[in-house]
């Protein structure tokens, strides 16, 4: 039994699943950290995942190409981001309650829209999802090859986003301004830049990334939209953001760690063969998220102006 528990780690299938489970979380954590780096907590994430999953899928179902669906999802996310941004940045409303409101709104818009489009379907309609990568040389490598061959172009996009966001934040004037607006908005104002504009822009871009996380589920991991398919993934991302100390590289690490744990518990369930209730295993990812949050919370270096609304000419 112990042997087979360890043997899981040598299966290419396990590592492929790890990456697949991590991909939506990579998008989600990147989105959350972008918003928070600019000083805005975006609890709309859970609902934006749902809206992204639903809108991206629906666009493809109605005839758009797959990448068109990805764009539609991103646009939907940016729209909800705009709503959250307007309410929390210039109006300075509670970021906690507004975020919950955006989650409720985005979820109900998606569910209502799905029911309008498909009033009486028993089995969810399907689309042709992203195909696995067809890699000329890499695909033939031992061990790594089969892992890569199970991924899709959507996953590649997630990994690319990690690099792009890291580069923007660390190396560009825009990144500097974004980090400053979450740490010291007065300084940004003194530079003649718009705090409101930067923050709303960051929330919109972050929300677009979150929506891509949802769209990955309906366009790549599965090929249909199900009610309740997000199931707390968005909240997990908020916890992982603290764990990643708001850095894209660590966000990737956190998401992969979470993916590995989730993939592992799924396989452990079959090994124990019902001796332990399946719910115990299903709890593990959530317990892990809470534990990760509690462990790093004390020394977490929160963006200093996180959740502090900024009004021009007011101290």
């Amino acid at each position, binding site marked *: 039994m112990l042997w087979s528990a360890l043997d899981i780690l040598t299966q290419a299938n396990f590592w492929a699943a790890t990456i697949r489970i991590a991909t939506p979380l990579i998008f989600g954590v990147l989105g959350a950290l972008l918003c928070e780096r600019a000083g805005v907590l975006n*609890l709309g994430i859970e609902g934006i995942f749902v809206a992204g999953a639903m809108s991206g899928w629906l666009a493809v179902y109605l005839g758009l190409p797959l990448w068109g669906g990805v764009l539609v999802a991103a646009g939907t996310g940016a729209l909800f981001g705009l*709503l959250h941004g307007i*309410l929390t940045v210039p*109006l300075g*409303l*509670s970021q*906690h*309650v*507004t975020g*919950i*409101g*955006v989650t*409720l*709104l985005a*979820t*109900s*818009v998606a*569910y*209502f*829209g799905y*029911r*309008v489009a498909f*009033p009486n379907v028993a089995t969810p309609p399907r689309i042709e999802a992203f195909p696995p990568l067809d890699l000329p040389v890499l695909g033939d490598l031992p061990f790594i090859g089969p892992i890569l061959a199970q991924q899709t172009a959507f996953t590649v996009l997630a990994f690319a986003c990690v690099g792009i966001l890291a580069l923007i934040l660390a190396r560009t004037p825009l990144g500097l301004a974004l980090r400053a607006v979450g740490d010291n908005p007065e300084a940004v104002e003194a530079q003649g830049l718009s705090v409101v504009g930067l923050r709303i822009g960051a929330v919109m871009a972050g929300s677009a990334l979150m929506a891509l996380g949802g769209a990955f589920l309906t366009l790549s991991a599965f090929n249909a939209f199900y009610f309740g398919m997000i*199931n*707390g993934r968005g*909240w*997990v991302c*908020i*916890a992982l953001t*603290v764990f990643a100390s708001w850095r894209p590289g660590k966000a990737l690490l956190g998401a992969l760690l979470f993916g590995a744990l989730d993939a592992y518990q799924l396989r452990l369930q079959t090994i124990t063969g019902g001796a332990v*209730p399946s*719910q*115990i295993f*299903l*709890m593990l990812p*959530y*317990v892990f*998220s*809470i534990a990760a*949050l*509690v462990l790093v*919370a*004390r020394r*977490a270096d929160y963006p200093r102006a996180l959740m502090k609304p900024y*009004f021009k000419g007011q101290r």
Partner: protein
Amino acid sequence: MIRFIPRERTPVWLTVAVSVGAGLAALLLTAIPLALSGAPVLGAFVLMAKGALGDGFALAETLTRATPLIFTGLAAAVAFRAKLWNIGAEGQLYAGALATVALGAGLIEAPAYVLVPLVLIGAALAGAALLLVPVLFKTRFGADEVVVTLLMNFIVLLFVQMMLEGPMKDEMAMGWPQSAPVLDEATLPKLITGLRLHWGLVIAVISALLLHVFITRTVWGFRIRAVGENARAARYAGLPVGKAMALVGLLSGGLAGLAGASEVAGLKGYLTADLSPGFGYAGIVVATLANLSPLGVIPSAIFVAGVFVGADSMSRAIGVSNYLADLVVALALLSVLVGGLLTRFRIVLVRREAV
């Protein structure tokens, strides 16, 4: 140019007007997706109103649905007053429901005047204990309670499913994962025979009155408000901030636990994993619509319940999805947040030169 000038005092009529206005605004905004879906807008709203308030039966259904919402609304109101962001009422509700079944389904045999209070206290304690965990994580480790309470909702629901498929499963239930029914002595009696309305409503209203008196008239109520207004100032003034937070946690979790007890012992009679269609989350809307006032929670819960009951009935009649209700409720929350600006600020138009 528009300027926000903070108000010294807010007249009560304005607060009430903002809440009512937000409710109406939400209904108005919902007309847009409703029209886009091709449904008869006016007809749908008339059917919703009839379904929620049309006759005695409809009204009783609305009040039945409002009962758990008053409890979870109070849970959110007291917590948010102290800026303790408890988003875990859903989980605490299920903890209360589990305790109700654990105590009331045969473990203890006693007359109703013993068993009913015992079940209620047990449920409140279970909910309170569950919220103490994130409160402790917050005060000890600085872990954000929003994420912890949210994630705990999923853990608790899985735990409930585990119990219902394992030790708490009713063997007489034809394989359905549900608990054994609570004893007659643990059941909250119906208020009117023939209707589903039960004594849980009375307990909910009494809880609201007690919480109102507690917050406005007692020393600890004042401390809770002070911590919510400005925790740093409260600490400088020598107020026991940690204890106040723990007290808020106990109250908030306890009230959410009572929602679970009321649903199981008053309405369903047994526990299933789909006991709550999101009462915990809707409680946040109820509390915000009520401007976090315990007394305001009562009409606000009735409004939200009416939207859900009305939408169900409308959906049965003309086939428009009842997710419309979730839309109205979400829009009401966002509208009241925006409207709240009017109660906190005077909004003045000034000419640019005058600035």
